[in-house]
Structures are given as C-alpha cells and as structure tokens.
C-alpha cells in the first residue's frame, strides 16, 4: 500500500504515465515510481506502424514481437511493484504478449520476486489468421479512408490487430494481476482500465467512462501534457532536463487532477493540457473508442494550484457496435538522401543539384511514384508559407526522397547522390553518413469490425506456471 488513501477516506487513485511511445525517455517510468506515491504506472508503446515491425520480428523469431526494452525496464520497476504495490499496465506486448509476459516473469524470478508478481496477459486482438474466414463471412474490412475492400491488398498483409478497450485490462486487474501486459489495447484503455477497476464504474456509466478516457488521452503521450512540446512561454518552462511526466489523480465521480511529482521539471497548466487534448483530434464531439464516445467540447479545465489542472464536466455517450482494426500491408520502397550546400549561393546550388539529379534519374529511365525535394533551412517545415530565404543564407540542406512500388529504382537512386559532391555544383558537404538506406514501406489500412466477432482473452501467469 502506498501513502495514497484507498479503501477508507478520500478515494484518490494516482495513475502515472511512464512512456508515451516506443522509444520514449527510459528514465521517466523510474522517476514516476521513485518520485512520490502512485498506484498505477501506465506505459504506451504502440503506434500504427509498430505492430507491423513487431510482426516481422516475430516471423523471424517466434519468441519476439513485443517491445523488448520493456523487460529490462521491468527489472528496474519490479521492486516497486513487489514492495510498494504499484501496478503496471502496458501494451508493450505488441503481437506477442505471451512472450513479453514470459520475459517479465523470468526477470521477476532472477530478482527473487517470483512470488510477488502476477502477470495479466491480454490478447485476442490479433486477427491475422482469421482474415480469410472474416472476409468469407461477409466482413469486407473496407478501408475507412479510401473505401476500398481488403481483397485489393490481401496477399500483402503483414499484421491485423483489433483495438481492444479497457475491459480486458479491468478483468486482469480484478483477477489479481499486478503487471498487465497487453497486445493492441487502446492507449486510453491503459489509464481507464485502472479507474474502472478501482471505482467499480458500470459499463454504461458513459460520463465516467468518458472522463477516464479523457484522462487516458492526457496520459498517453507522456510529457506532452506536462510542458514538453508546449509552445506557450516555452523558454520559461523549468528544467526540461528532468521533466515530470503526467500523473492523473482520479476521483470516483469521474473528476480528476492532472499533475506531476514535486521537484520535477516541466509545467502543468491549462495551456499544456489543452494542447494535449487537441493532439490528433478529429471531430471533438465524437471521439470514438471501444469503450464510449466522448464529447471533448464538454471538458472543463481549471488551474487548481501550481502544476495542477482540474478536469471536470466530461460527457460521454454509448460506445458503438464496432471495433477499429489496424491492418498493415507491404506497399513498396522509399529512400531519402541529403546533401548540404554552403554559402555563397547556397540555396541556388541546392536547387541546381536537384535539377541535375532529377535529369540523371530520367535518363536512367527510373520510374518513381513520387520524387519530393525539400530544402532544409528554407521550406522543409512550412513550405511556401515560410517565404523567400535570405540570399546570404549560410547553408541549405538539399533533401530528396523517392518512393516506388519496386525496389530497383529506389536502390539505384541511393547511388546517385554522392557523385554530385564531385561532379555537381560546388561547396557541398555533409555526406558522412553515407548512402541513403532503402526502406520498405509498410502501409496502414484502417477498418471496422463488429464487436460480436471479437473475444478478448485474459490469462494470469505466475513464475510457477500458468493459471
């Protein structure tokens, strides 16, 4: 038990965010468990592209297919889990949550904590092996963006995962898991699940389910709600060398406070939380998750103290009858190369190099779906909105990308940049990294599937064996 009052007294449950994506700051989760009392640590690892990367890793090695750095991280976190009752909820399981859970149990055993760790494994999201049966049953898994049926790319599909919501996480916690490892559970479900479990909210208590979903949206990108990537007075945001990641202090009535540990850097303000609320937002009145539909126009924010923002008023509506499916498929290849041109006439030299390169690609009869030229320092971020550059500009980076369905033209393109250093316009440099890399493009296919087709699975594993 932490210092947080739980079964008696004011029911506040503290849910801390430890990772906003696979590759986020490794120190953040450690600081969350060491910096003050928390009840839960949520860690989000999955983006759309991540699942296909993990699927490929699993194809090469059946023991892979999850966020591998989660296991060494758990080695550092498990003492807090065992000694202070902090529970960890993460979708680090990717396309192989069982293997991820096995890794966690192995580490627990090596720390002498085997008896103290119960891992809940949430799966049932992976429908790759069921696709043909689902299509045969009349589910066309039409692309939500383009309207095309899945048959168009059927032979190139690499992964297919349904977004599960908070409820399988709730089941894992109810069955005593203190580490919950999931496949494709929504980012928001990782925060909402603990709130439902602690407060016993009903599945149709839409306003509270929506409130927990908003809390999840604030937690899911790590420090992006606590002063990271925040434009307002950005130069005065304290100590971003040690940013405090968000902590949601949840109340049973669905209201909550967003804060961070004392003594950490960053800033929790109405501005920082508002920016995160709008991040990746579609229609704010219809924010659809597996658990509910949230109306973001109902949210009220108030600065409730230094680095404390109170959130109230959240309204929700019934969940839809569908789940979103994230399908990935092989699309083609791309490569991006750069060269830096120096003063004088840096921009004009870079432009000339671009013309020459394109002419050479043409003479080689290389066919690309797209060739994109950007000039870093001139227009790479804001395009024509940036206006004309200073004619005396110190340097310009020429950045050229190509994309093709076939690997051949892309591979040849990667050989065409370096020669320009000696046989093109003068004063180019910055090619030390060598030839551009050919990258496979795995594209993303969003679709919907009726909830009735999907049955999430929850297992509880201990070091002594499954149960």
């Amino acid at each position, binding site marked *: 038990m932490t210092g947080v009052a739980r079964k008696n007294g004011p029911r506040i449950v503290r849910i801390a965010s430890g990772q906003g994506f696979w590759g986020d700051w490794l120190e953040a989760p450690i600081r969350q468990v060491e910096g003050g009392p928390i009840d839960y640590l949520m860690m989000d690892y999955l983006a759309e592209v991540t699942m296909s990367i993990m699927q490929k890793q699993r194809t090469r090695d059946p023991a892979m297919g999850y966020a591998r750095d989660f296991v060494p991280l758990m080695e550092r976190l498990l003492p807090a889990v065992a000694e202070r009752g902090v529970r960890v909820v993460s979708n680090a399981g990717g396309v192989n949550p069982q293997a991820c859970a096995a890794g966690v149990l192995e580490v627990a055993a090596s720390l002498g904590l085997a008896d103290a760790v119960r891992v809940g494994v949430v799966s049932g999201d992976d429908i790759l092996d069921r696709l043909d049966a689902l299509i045969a049953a009349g589910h066309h898994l039409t692309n939500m963006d383009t309207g095309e049926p899945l048959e168009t790319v059927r032979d190139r599909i690499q992964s297919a995962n349904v977004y599960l919501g908070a409820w399988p996480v709730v089941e894992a916690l109810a069955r005593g898991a203190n580490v919950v490892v999931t496949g494709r559970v929504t980012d928001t479900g990782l925060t909402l699940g603990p709130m439902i479990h602690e407060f016993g909210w009903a599945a149709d208590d839409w306003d509270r389910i929506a409130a927990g979903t908003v809390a999840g949206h604030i937690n899911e990108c790590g420090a992006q709600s606590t002063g990271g990537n925040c434009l307002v007075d950005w130069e005065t945001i304290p100590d971003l060398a040690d940013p405090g990641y968000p902590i949601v202090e949840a109340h049973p009535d669905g209201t909550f406070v967003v804060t961070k540990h004392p003594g950490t850097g960053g800033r929790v303000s109405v501005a920082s939380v508002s920016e995160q609320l709008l991040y990746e937002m579609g229609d704010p009145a219809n924010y659809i998750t597996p658990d509910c539909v949230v109306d973001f126009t109902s949210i009220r924010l108030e600065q409730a103290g230094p680095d404390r923002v109170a959130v109230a008023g959240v309204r929700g509506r019934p969940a839809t009858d569908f789940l979103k499916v994230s399908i990935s498929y092989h699309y083609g290849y791309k490569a*991006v190369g750069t060269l830096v041109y120096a003063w004088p006439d840096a921009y004009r030299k870079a432009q000339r190099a671009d013309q020459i390169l394109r002419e050479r690609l043409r003479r080689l009869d290389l066919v690309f779906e797209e060739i994109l030229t950007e000039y870093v320092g001139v227009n790479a971020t804001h395009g024509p909105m940036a206006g004309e550059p200073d004619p005396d500009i110190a340097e310009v980076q020429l950045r050229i990308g190509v994309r093709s369905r076939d690997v051949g033209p892309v591979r040849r393109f990667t050989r065409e940049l370096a020669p320009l250093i000696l046989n093109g316009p003068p004063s180019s440099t910055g090619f030390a990294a060598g030839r551009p890399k050919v990258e496979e493009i795995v594209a993303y296919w969003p679709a919907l599937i009726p909830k009735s087709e999907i049955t999430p699975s929850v297992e509880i594993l201990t070091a002594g064996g499954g149960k």
Partner: protein
Amino acid sequence: MGAKRRRFRGGATGGTRRVRLLELAHARSGDKGDTANVGLIALRPEYYPLLVREVTAARVAAHFGGVIRGDVVRFELPNLNALNFLLHGALGGGGTLSLKTDAQGKVFSTALLRMEIDVPEALDVE
C-alpha cells in the same frame, strides 16, 4: 508570448490592424493518415471570438494553399477557447508513405500561427 513579443501593423486600416496568430493563440498539430489536425487555442478568452470570426476553414485552406490537396474542416471547442482544423491530403500520403520531413504534421501548428488576421485597433495584445 513572453520573449517573442512583436506587433504587425502593416495592414492597419480604419480601426483595425493586422496581427499574427502567434500573438493571439498557441497550437498543436498531429496526424491521422493523410490528414493533419491543428488545434488552435486562444492565449486569452477574449481572443477566442476573434479566432472564430477570422480563422475560417476557407482562410485556413487558402493559407495552406499549395501545401494541402484536400479540403479543410473546422470544429469549435468554446470550452477550451479552441478551434480544431482537419487538413485533408496534407501529408504526402501520410504515415509511412510520406517523403516529407514533417510526415506526421507536427509543425502544421506553427505554420498556422504565421497567418495574419484583422483585430480591433484597441485590442490589448501581449
């Protein structure tokens, strides 16, 4: 906006003047497929009605002309003194297909803050 105070009076006419959105709002942007979203948040509540009046979907589409291929849709969030814009066909195919530096639309936010709008001459701008 703290250290970055600037005024733009170039377009001043009869009781109004032109101000960059940077002086009135902050913003965050992200991606959904080939669509960029830009959340635009008033720095003070009294600026919000000006944003609603001046920063229309049509003006945003014109501002991003040559950068986006699709249309622009606007949503209002008066509770946050904010507008949310969806800019379709903005990211060169989006996700992994895009060749752009800003494939995920991360800095469409500050691109929008370059826009200038007319505000009353008397408006108190930080």
